[in-house]
């Protein structure tokens, strides 16, 4: 069970390659990678992510602990960046390992839904016109009710 909150870039492929190695009881690994996407009309210069040091780590650890409690996870990984990010760069990654696919998928979606709405990160999109804070979606909060 690993949590990393960092400004540095990371390589999702290398993370997956190292994840869940050397265990005979893992049958399913699910990963989610969030990537800096251009605006629908284009024009994104970069993304900036602000976070709440101290609370970020404890909030993510609490979310991860709940996932471990609810599903048969053998391992989990959460990486989330902050600071400036370029178009196409990985923002964050979640990985879950379980004996069966149902637990791995459910836990990964649970982690994503909770990270979206309960971990103290705020995204800002920088364009030629300035910088806009990304608004939370009603659907993000609604997604929590399914768990």
């Amino acid at each position, binding site marked *: 069970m690993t949590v990393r909150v960092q400004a540095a870039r990371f390589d999702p492929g290398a993370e997956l390659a190292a994840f869940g190695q050397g265990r005979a009881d893992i049958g399913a690994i699910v990963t989610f990678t*969030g990537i800096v996407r251009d605006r629908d009309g284009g024009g994104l210069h970069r993304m900036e*992510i*602000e*976070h*709440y040091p*101290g*609370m970020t780590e*404890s*909030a993510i650890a609490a979310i991860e602990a709940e996932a471990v409690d609810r599903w048969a996870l053998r391992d989990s990984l959460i990486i*989330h960046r902050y600071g400036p990010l370029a178009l196409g760069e990985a*923002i*964050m990654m979640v990985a879950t390992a379980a004996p069966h696919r149902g637990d791995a998928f459910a836990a990964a979606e649970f982690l*994503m839904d909770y*990270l*979206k*709405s*309960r*971990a*103290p*990160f*705020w*995204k*800002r999109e920088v364009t030629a016109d300035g910088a806009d*804070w*990304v*608004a*939370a979606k009603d659907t*993000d*909060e609604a997604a929590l009710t399914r768990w």
Partner: protein
Amino acid sequence: MIDVLYFAWVRERIGLPKERIETGAATVADLVAELRLREERYEAAFADLTALRVAVDQQLTGFDAPLAGAREVAFFPPMTGG
């Protein structure tokens, strides 16, 4: 004395990330009421509480949360991580 932190557009509207405040406010809502009386920039930041979230000592909570013994209160918009 309590540390009050602001993030994202709340920080921008108030114009600083953190301040130490001398207050006798019993709850978060009481503290917000005090801050709104200070200056226009606080009024602008706290005008719509439904657009804000609050954490006391780094735990998400509601505006009715008590402040007795709290060391740190943070105000911010809904999170947009992930």
